């Protein structure tokens, strides 16, 4: 890699109480790279990406995001959070605000855009995720797929350099998965740096540059999606892929 990595994990360790949830994680993500992270439940995938915007704190090792090291310094955390967008499994839209206000509030309060300008930006992103006609509804009035698209638009409004997706289709009814994945494929085509925790193997194959397989808090295997799915090297990955494919 010629360029500096935008995300760098160096020997990162983390415990939840006595439980060793991340074990010596080393990872470098280049700008524009699209990484899919998979692995059995409880393997530390979500915890790892949540460390990137410090929703979780690591206890040992170094994490550097966009040239800034993650420490307890509040200023650093805020500037990193404004560079990193995140979309969650349970959408986490703000239920007491309209869809439009969900998109405006961050721009207005964090990026300090005037309200009118923020609304314009919000509408362009709502159009991009094809949901502009719902701008004045409250999140509770939308379907799961629509809510998740709003959540993606909310993150994009902050003009992040990196996007984190934490099992964003797991809580959706099957017929709504595609509309959300389509938005993510679009985003990938634009060159966004993306870390995606997902079990959507089709998405991984078409979009990812690299697949990372985790188990018991460690990165077990890294490969291109084609090679990983067709020819997993480790036994754990073989059995995992067997189980996941069995379901699809």
């Amino acid at each position: 890699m010629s360029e500096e990595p935008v995300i760098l994990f160096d020997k990162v360790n983390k415990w939840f109480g006595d439980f060793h949830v991340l074990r010596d994680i080393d990872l470098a993500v280049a700008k524009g790279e699209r990484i899919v992270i998979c692995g059995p439940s409880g393997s530390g995938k979500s915890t790892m990406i949540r460390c990137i915007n410090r929703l979780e704190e690591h206890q040992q090792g170094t994490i550097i995001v966009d040239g800034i090291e993650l420490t307890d310094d509040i200023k650093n955390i805020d500037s990193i959070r404004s560079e990193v967008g995140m979309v969650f499994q349970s959408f986490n839209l703000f239920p007491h605000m309209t869809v439009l206000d969900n998109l405006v509030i961050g721009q207005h309060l964090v990026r300090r855009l005037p309200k009118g300008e923020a609304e314009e930006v919000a509408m362009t992103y709502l159009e991009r995720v094809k949901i502009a006609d719902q701008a004045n509804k409250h999140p509770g009035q939308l379907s799961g797929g629509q809510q998740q698209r709003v959540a993606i638009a909310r993150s994009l409004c902050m003009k992040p350099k990196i996007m984190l997706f934490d099992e964003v289709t797991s809580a959706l009814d099957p017929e709504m998965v595609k509309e959300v994945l389509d938005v993510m494929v679009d985003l990938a085509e634009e060159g966004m740096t993306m870390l995606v925790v997902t079990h959507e193997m089709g998405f991984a194959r078409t979009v990812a540059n690299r697949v990372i397989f985790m188990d018991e808090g460690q990165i077990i295997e890294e490969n291109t999606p084609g090679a990983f799915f067709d020819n997993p090297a480790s036994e754990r990955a073989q059995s995992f892929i067997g189980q996941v494919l069995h379901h699809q």
Partner: protein
Amino acid sequence: MEPILKPFKEQQAPPLQSSGFVVWLRSNFFSTWINSLMTIGLLWVIYQIGSFVINWGFIDAVWFGESAKACPNVHGACWAFVTDRWRLFVYGLYPSELRWRVDVFYGLGALTIAAFVFSFGPITKRLRLTMFIGFPIAAYILLVGGMVGLKYVTPEDFGGLLLTVVIAAVGIFASIPLGLILMLGRTSELKVISKVCAYYIEFWRGVPHIAVIVMFVALLPIFIPDGNKIDIVVRALIAFAAFNSAYMAEVFRGGLQSIPAGQFEASKAIGLSYWKMMGYIILPQAIRNSVPALVNTCISIFKETTIVLLIGFSDFLGIIQLSLEDPKWLGPPHIFSSAYVFAALIYFSFTFGMSKYSLRLENRTNVDH
């Protein structure tokens, strides 16, 4: 296996709802024989109570008169006691030539309530904010005076409904912001702050309110230099705010705990600072979820104002009791019962209003579906 195909059914209208008063009656009150029996039994009870209330409270009641002699009929209410003394009940010992100031205060209070109950189109929000901030200031200037050409009236002359309303309003409106601050403190990640707030809350919740009131009124001057100069009513108000803010803090903490962790995470993920996250995302939802418990606490604050009786204040209930001791009104016990029924009705109408308003608030702020 051959596929089993079922014919597609077009959408159909729902079955006709049979309606009308008789159908409604039958389905709600006479659906089974046991239901019918209960309905008839309850009707009989309602009739008995209703006829008693009408006879006692209206037909056999005495409405006007100047002393106990006006109320010889022990089977009817003695409203004469109330109509003869209502000024005292409403104004307390407020100087009679200055009572217009209390009238203006009540009027402004009614307008403020109206501003929150009714909608006034685009200016509603600004109007409410103006009243919310303006009313307490105006109330203080009007009632206490000593400025803008208004003669000073010592709060010790407040009494009756005026004192009850002032103590309740100050108790409620001081303890809400204090409670919010205490709740934020208690849930803070800074251990020192959270411990201090937790102990503050536990202390004031754990001490009998009567003890607190007596302590503030009697003992405060001993601990604080010049404590005697703090008006005795103000001391009671401080005591009220102190323990009620502890209850409010717990009410708000309950609301806070109902907010899913995802709301905090999403706020942090878009880069909101702690205060912006709390102010724009978490507290609006937490407060909304606290409304039923909040109004519950407000109602109990309103009713609990009567404990100032114990330190010699004549609040609404106190002044009614005092008037009952007036030799002019010493008489048969039904004057007593009439007086207390009247007091109960007034307290009830205030608290019932609060609970109705809270229901409206819950419905209005419910935007989830």
